[in-house]
C-alpha cells in the first residue's frame, strides 16, 4: 500500500509551487524529489520541512560534503533506506577510490579513506550522538574541539544529525519510494 500522496508541480498550490521553485533554485536540481512532493498537499508543511533543510544544509560554516557524510552515517545507522540512498551518492563522489562497501566503514567509524583527518573525528562523534546522545561526554566534545571545531561548528554538526533523524523518521514511516536517480545505489 502506498502510504503517501504525491503532489506534482502542476497540481500544487501557488505557495507550494513557490517552495518547489526555491528547492530547485537552491539545489540546482531539475525536478522536485519525492520527499518534498509527498508534503505538497500542505503548503505549510512543505515550507517548514524545506526551510529547515535549507537552513541546516545550505548555510553555516561546515562544508556541504561533510554534512552529506553526517546525513549518510545517521541515515544508515537508522536503517533509513530513502535517506541513505540519497546521500550515499554524494559521499561516494568525495573520493573516486571509494566504493559502496567502503561506505560501511563510515558507519563503523573506521573510514581509512584518503579524506581529511577531521572526517574520522566527526564520524566518531556522529556515531556516538546517534547511539547515545545522553551519554555524550565532555571528552568527546573536547576531541572534536581539538580537531579545530568551534562550539558553533559542533552545534551545526548536531543540527545536521537532528535534521537527518527527522527526515529518517518521516521517510521511513511513510516508506517513500526512491527517486529514480538513487535506485542504482541500492
Amino acid at each position, binding site marked *: 500500500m502506498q502510504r503517501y500522496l504525491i503532489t506534482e508541480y502542476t497540481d500544487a498550490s501557488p505557495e507550494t509551487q513557490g517552495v518547489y521553485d526555491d528547492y530547485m533554485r537552491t539545489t540546482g536540481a531539475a525536478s522536485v524529489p519525492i520527499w518534498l512532493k509527498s508534503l505538497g498537499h500542505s503548503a505549510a508543511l512543505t515550507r517548514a520541512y524545506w526551510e529547515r533543510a535549507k537552513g541546516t544544509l545550505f548555510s553555516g*560554516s561546515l562544508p556541504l560534503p561533510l554534512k552529506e557524510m553526517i546525513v549518510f552515517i545517521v541515515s544508515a545507522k537508522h536503517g533509513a533506506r530513502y535517506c541513505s540512498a540519497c546521500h550515499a551518492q554524494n559521499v561516494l563522489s568525495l*573520493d*573516486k577510490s571509494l566504493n559502496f562497501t567502503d561506505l560501511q566503514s563510515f558507519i563503523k567509524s573506521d573510514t581509512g579513506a584518503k*579524506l581529511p*583527518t577531521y572526517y574520522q573525528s566527526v564520524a566518531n562523534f556522529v556515531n556516538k550522538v546517534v547511539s547515545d546522545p545522553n551519554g555524550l561526554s565532555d571528552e568527546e566534545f573536547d576531541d572534536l*574541539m581539538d580537531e*579545530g571545531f*568551534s562550539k*558553533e561548528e559542533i552545534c551545526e554538526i548536531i543540527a545536521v544529525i537532528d535534521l537527518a533523524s527527522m527526515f529518517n523518521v518521516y521517510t521511513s514511516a511513510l516508506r517513500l519510494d526512491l527517486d529514480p536517480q538513487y535506485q542504482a545505489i541500492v
Partner: protein
Amino acid sequence: MKQNSESTWDDRTIQQLVSYEALFKLIAEIQPLEDIKEISRQVAKQWKYFANVACFHLVVKKGEIFLVIDGFRGEADVTEVTSLTPWDAYHFESQLPCLIHMEDLQDNPAPPVHLMNKGIAEIEILPFLRLGICIGVINIAARHRPFDELDHKFNRIFSSHFTYRIYDILLRQQSINVLRDKATHDALTGLLNRGAIMERIDTVFKVSKRTKDSLSVILVDIDHFKKINDSYGHLVGDEVLRDVSRRLQAQTRDSDQLGRYGGEEFLFMLYPCSSDKVDIASERFRQAIADHPIILENGDPSGINVTISLGTATVRNSDPNIEALLKRADEALYYSKSSGRNRVTIG
C-alpha cells in the same frame, strides 16, 4: 579499498577540489575584513577544511612590539607582546623554514602549549620576510598524520597570504594613527590643536546637556609672552611653551582635555567639573607655573619666572552652544589680565 598515492591532476577527487574551493572561499571572505580578530577567527575555523591543520601560532612584527595570534579549537586569541618567547625568538632569528616531528621535539625551547596538544603529529614553521627583514613567523600543527604534499602546498599559499595580510593591516593602522596624530596635535607641544580641542568640547557639551553633569572650560594665557620672545628669542619662547604645556598636562585628570588654543593660549576642558570645583583646579594650574621658574637648556640656572592668567566658565542651561561658554571664559581671562595678571577669574 583502493588508494592511489601517485594521483595525477586527472585523478584529483572531488574532495581535493573541495579543498581548493575552501581555500579560495576563505581568502575571499577575509579579503574585505580589516578586523584582525575576526580574520583570525575565520582562519581558525576554516583552515582545517583545506589542509590537515588543527591549530596555528602566528607572530607578526608591529613596530617595536609583536602581535601574536593563536588559533585553536576553532577560535582565535590575539594579543600584543613586547618581547618574544625563546621559541619565537629563535625562529625569528634563524629565518629558516623547518618541519619538526613531535618525537624529535626538544624541551628547550618549548613551543606554545596548544601546538603540543594530543594527536599533533608535526609542526611546520614558516618565516616571512620583507626587504630582508623577518616580519612574521607562523607555526602550523598537523593532527593525527603528517602533512601530505597537498597540505604543504595549501599551507604555503595560505600562510603567506595570511601573514602578509595581517602585517599590511598593522602597517596601515600605524600610518593612519600617525596621520591622525599629525592632524589633531600641535607639533611643538604635543597637545591637541585648536580644531581638535574645540571638537572634543563640542561633543562633551552635547553629552553634558543630556546628562546634566557640569562641563567647565579654562582659558589660559602666558603672561608677557611677547616680552619673553623679544628678550630671549623665539627658540627660548618655544622652550617656555613646551615646559608650560608639560606642567599643565601633568595636572589634568584622565577625563580632562588640554589643547593649544592659540600662540600662547591654552584651553582646558574639565568634565565633570562644577563651578565650585573649577576655581580649585584653576588655582592649582596657576601655581604649577608660578611657583617654579622654568629652567632653560644652556640658560641661566635660576631660570625664567613665568606666570599665567586664567579665565573659567561652567556650562549654564541657557548656553546654546560652546561659543557662549568660551565667550564667558574669554571675558574672565580678559579680566584676569587687566587686573594684574597671574590670577584666576571665575566666569
